[in-house]
């Protein structure tokens, strides 16, 4: 469940410009696509939802918790437990292998390690042969798939994906969308995708345009 009310945000170095976001009210297990040209604050909204930025005004409720009322370390803990972030550019711990990165993500969420889930996920993403490779040895498409795995491994309540398809060709794009939909279903979570990629649009019914 995601609900925001009269959300506003101002960056410190651009005091005169304030982002105003429309209210979102998303029931559990529903998907939403946030569309809009670059510069309107799509990523900012995503980071607000992830609790990485504090809103200037307004409230964010995720899974019945009000994010802006949590302390800093409570917020870190909440993020680890309930939020799965998938970035536009893939980030990893470079010195670790694919499998180690997944295990690390799992541990940080302080949830019980689920070997079956890990194996199933890796297999489904077609990364089984690569699980002991260092992440920098992977191709871009493989890295993007790993980044999805990292976003969903801990079964978050909310999956937030930032332009997950912008660097991918058509066939990979469709693959990634179906992967995200499938994982959201398995985890029973909300899937929030921000994108300006028109290819994605047809796969989702629920849109917000900024």
């Amino acid at each position, binding site marked *: 469940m995601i609900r925001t009310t009269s959300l506003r945000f101002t960056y410190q170095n651009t005091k005169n410009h304030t982002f105003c976001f429309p209210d979102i009210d998303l029931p559990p297990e529903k998907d939403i696509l946030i569309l809009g040209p670059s510069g309107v604050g799509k990523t900012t909204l995503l980071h607000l939802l992830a609790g990485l930025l504090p809103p200037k005004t307004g409230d964010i409720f995720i899974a019945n918790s009000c994010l802006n009322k949590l302390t800093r*370390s409570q917020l*870190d803990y909440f993020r*680890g437990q309930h939020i799965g972030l998938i970035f536009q550019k893939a980030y990893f711990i470079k010195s670790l292998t694919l499998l180690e990165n997944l295990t690390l993500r799992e541990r*940080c969420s302080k949830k019980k390690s689920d070997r079956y889930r890990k194996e199933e996920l890796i297999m489904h993403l077609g990364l089984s042969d690569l699980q002991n490779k260092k992440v920098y040895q992977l191709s871009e498409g493989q890295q993007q798939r790993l980044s999805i795995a990292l976003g969903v491994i801990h079964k978050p309540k909310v999956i937030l994906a930032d332009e997950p398809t912008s660097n991918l060709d058509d066939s990979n794009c469709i693959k990634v969308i179906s992967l995200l939909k499938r994982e959201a279903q398995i985890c029973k979570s909300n899937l929030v995708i921000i994108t300006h990629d028109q290819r994605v649009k047809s796969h989702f019914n629920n849109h917000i345009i900024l």
Partner: protein
Amino acid sequence: MLSILLLMLSISLATFVLQIRNQLDQHLESNIKPFDMVIGAKGSSLQLILSSVLHIDNPTGNISLEEAMRIAKNPMVKEMIPVSYGDNYKGIRILGTTNKYLNTYEASLQEGSLFEKPFEVVIGSGVAKKLDLQIGDTFISSHGLAENVLETHNENPFIITGILKPTNTIIDHLIITNLESVWEVHEHDNEHHHHEEEHVDEHSDHKDEYEKEREITSLLVKFRNPLGALQMSRFINDETTMQAALPKFEIERLMGFLGVGFQTINGISVAILLVAGLSIFINLIKTVRERKQELALLLTYGVNTFQLIKLVFLEALFLSLLGSIAGWFLGRISIWFFSIFTEDLYGYHFVFSLPTNKELLILILVILTTLLAAILVSLSLFKLNVSKTISHA
């Protein structure tokens, strides 16, 4: 990497100097402890101590045994031991003395027996090992204190009757015989010269002459009361042709000279330590900066700032501990190499010893410096803007 190397270098240098100084002090202390005063020929008092007690320099000259004994015959004197030398075997000094000398250093026999007759010798454990000598072996001494083949005393081979147990004092590196051996070697020498010059056999006359004028290199004296040494040394230095020197005083003077050198090296190691500390600090800042994205990523994983700080501290401590421990071992290994060198030259050997209090103090200082660096670096973690770091790749 560089910071670990620097830290290693400075720690090894500092511990090396500390250890050498400590062990040198102990060596000198144990070597001079048995004697309160040395009576010898006039000259440098430090030289007298170095030659007669530590056996590293040349003697100042000879003194008359009779005169020395007369002066030392005093109720304040507890014990006096004449020593005489002038010969060596392969660079190792042959010291003519009495059994009392061995007793003062608490030397006991490993095997064999003590010297009884002239030309019988006991050898220190170090000598036995270095020259691979055994009981019953004979050797010919050469004149002077340095190894040479030109002036050998061919007529009188020495025979080894005993090998001493290691004492960790200078005795380990000496060949010890009785006074008569030393006298006789040179007596025969003189006879030769006389034969050549006068072509007359005056053997009996000579013998009488030498009985009267036995010479020794020095007389080692132990007092019942330390004040005695002060009184008597003043008397000897003012009223006789001999000089008296106090080992403790002279060695303190010597360590004073050496202290400047030790302090210089200590200063250098402190300077390197400072550079190492700075380097660890810069290294930490660099790592945090380079891994800013990874640290931000961990924050999105739900790791909190304090856990990241813990990570930085662990890394810093790991670096400094690794550097310190490696440096400590390097210092000890250097001492081992240094020991091989000094044992060969001066008969001083340095042992592998466990960390001392001063070394632990250095370690604590290093760790405190590291912690300080880690605290300064951690401050930047509080300001880490995850959103910005992640979106501006």
